[in-house]
């Protein structure tokens, strides 16, 4: 970190010490206490025991000695993971004043979850209004709202979707029958259905060094790891035929990493953390007077907050 020259002064050094302490002592316990489907986590991907000990983001502000919010959120994330399951309250805060509409979060989500064609967890809605010269433009990322009163849950005929112990609405792909009732029920259009398409469907075969269907297809047929379970894209096996949605990257959170959309946001417009921690960044932000949620009138109690 020092060699990157991104943290300056004693304040930076003391924060590094704090980070190391948290990482060293908290990570193992935190990861062990994490659960996704309210069951004991299984070792996956060889990531057990992994710690976020790599270099912090290069965008850390050196000038004023402030720690980048990404660092702060990762520290807070590990602290939250050290708490018993059920005592965390994951929320996302999206600062619409900072969002520049780059769609990096959308693409990061697609890459992280290996989303096939027709599946999107986090589109960014673009709006324009007014008449020149008084015009406005707004970008509204729309992940799953992880509602505290989710309309999508009670309609499922087979209990394939529910709020996990930490309050994230999850989907058990192997339980889902693909009726799409949850898609109808969601007032935010946050669920999409996997029709089994692949990007390389129409790609012609080609000989090396051109990347034809076989070469390009290798990537998209690799397993994806949503919910910490390897799901290869084979035949018509789940998640093909299932409703899919944003899950706050629980598989990343489980190992102390922030959701992909948060890490990738170039404007630090998307923030994530434990709202049960009164000192967390998200707790501070959701208490601001300029915070709002989508379609509050429906009483779904979304866990995604917007700063406007």
């Amino acid at each position, binding site marked *: 970190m020092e060699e990157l020259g991104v943290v300056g002064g004693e304040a930076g050094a003391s924060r590094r010490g704090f980070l190391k302490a948290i990482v060293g002592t908290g990570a193992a316990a935190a990861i062990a206490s994490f659960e996704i489907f309210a069951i004991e986590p299984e070792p996956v991907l060889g990531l057990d025991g992994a710690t976020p000990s790599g270099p912090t983001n290069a965008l850390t502000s050196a000038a004023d000695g402030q720690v980048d919010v990404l660092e702060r959120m990762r520290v807070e994330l590990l602290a939250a993971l050290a708490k018993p399951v059920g005592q965390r309250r994951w929320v996302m805060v999206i600062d619409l004043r900072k969002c520049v509409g780059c769609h990096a979060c*959308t693409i990061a989500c697609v890459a992280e979850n290996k989303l096939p*064609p*027709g*599946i*999107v967890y986090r*589109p*960014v*809605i*673009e*709006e324009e209004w007014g008449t020149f010269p008084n015009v406005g433009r707004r970008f*509204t990322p*729309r992940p799953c709202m992880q509602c505290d009163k989710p*309309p999508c849950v*009670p*309609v*499922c*005929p*087979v*209990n394939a979707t529910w709020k996990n112990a930490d309050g994230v609405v999850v989907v058990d792909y192997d*339980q*889902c*029958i*693909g*009726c*799409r*009732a949850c*898609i*109808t*029920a*969601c*007032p*935010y*259009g946050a*669920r*999409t*259905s*996997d*029709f*089994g*398409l692949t990007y390389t469907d129409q790609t012609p075969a080609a000989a090396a060094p051109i990347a034809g269907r076989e070469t390009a297809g290798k990537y998209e047929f690799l397993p994806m790891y949503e919910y910490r379970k390897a799901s290869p894209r084979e035949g*018509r096996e*789940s998640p*093909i*035929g*299932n*409703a899919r949605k944003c899950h706050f990257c629980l598989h990343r959170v489980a190992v102390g990493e922030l959701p992909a959309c948060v890490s990738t946001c170039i404007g630090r417009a998307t923030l994530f953390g434990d709202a049960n921690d009164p000192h967390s960044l998200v707790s501070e932000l959701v208490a601001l007077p300029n915070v709002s949620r*989508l*379609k509050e009138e*429906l009483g779904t109690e979304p866990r995604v907050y917007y700063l406007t």
Partner: protein
Amino acid sequence: MITTKRALYGIAILAVALGVYGFYSRLVFGERDVNYGSYVNWGLWVAGYLFFAGAAAGSFMIATLDYVFELPLFKGTGRFALLASLVTLPAALILIGFDLGHMERIWKVYLEPSFTSLLAQLVWSYTAFLLVVVGSLLMIGLDRRRWLKPLMVAGLVLAIFVSGAIGALLGVNAGRVSFHTAMLPVQFPILNLASGVSLLIVIVGLLGIVQDVARRERLLRVLGLALVVLLLVKSYFLWVDYSVALYSQVPDAVAVAELVLFGRFAWAFWILQIALGIVVPIVILAWPASARNGPLAALAAVLVLVGLAVGRTSIIFPALAIPELEGLAEAFQGPHLGFDYTPSLMEWSVVAGVLGLAGLGYLIANDRLSVFRTPTEVTR
């Protein structure tokens, strides 16, 4: 009558042949060739399910006029109405089964259900309803009627419940303004009864199950008048639905109403639902001479059925074609991510096949099973 029957066999076989492609595609390639998607997530098959399930429930209601309420005019017609119920219910279940992303997991609804889900309640209720229909027909066929009446009373309750529950299945979605109205659960039992009456008119008008001409004409006249009343009620429902939506000025409700009344498929509403599905049948059935004419009354009833089927599509498609959030349609492009839905050839093919199978099933049972080979004058 033989010529009519041959024509009906021909139409049914043709429909089955048209369905081969759709069935093959669905069973081999899954939902690859469908046009519904993640936003308009329920398409032609769900609308077809609503229609056929409604016809099954409505036919059962009509059958109770014979076996439960014992109306003399309907004596002997009950088993034919029950047969209509028996063939339309599997048609509905095939369509909704094909609509599932994992239809092989349907057993989970029985063994691992969520009872808070209306869908699960419907699956259970339809299963019970199917058993009641089969049980009733078995009792009639085997002439063991001791428990027939109680069974059919239970079936009548189930028929009304499943009809209303389908409306509720849509109505509970508070996020969809045009679904979220108590009118939907109220409408469905009435519309389903209209389906049942229409089917019996077709059966009486074309298949010669009532041989006494005077009785047949009287029956057609009564059924015709009942259907006229039901069509007037349907007209009232439509008026209430769209006038309230337009007057409310709630943007999503207005958008849905405008889509139905003036949108791309407005012709289906005005021509198929209103002109051919309501006005023409009322003219035919309200006029005694044409109402008593079997083929003409059957034509009117078929038009009503087409209108009811189109009505199901205009309940489902437009409501889902309005983005939940403004700008969502343009936010991310991709296959199955559109709000503009037109059923694919494969979807139509499946519906044709299902319709053909139901029709063929009815005709074969009607001709081959002894319980249906005797006219209504012979009480069974």
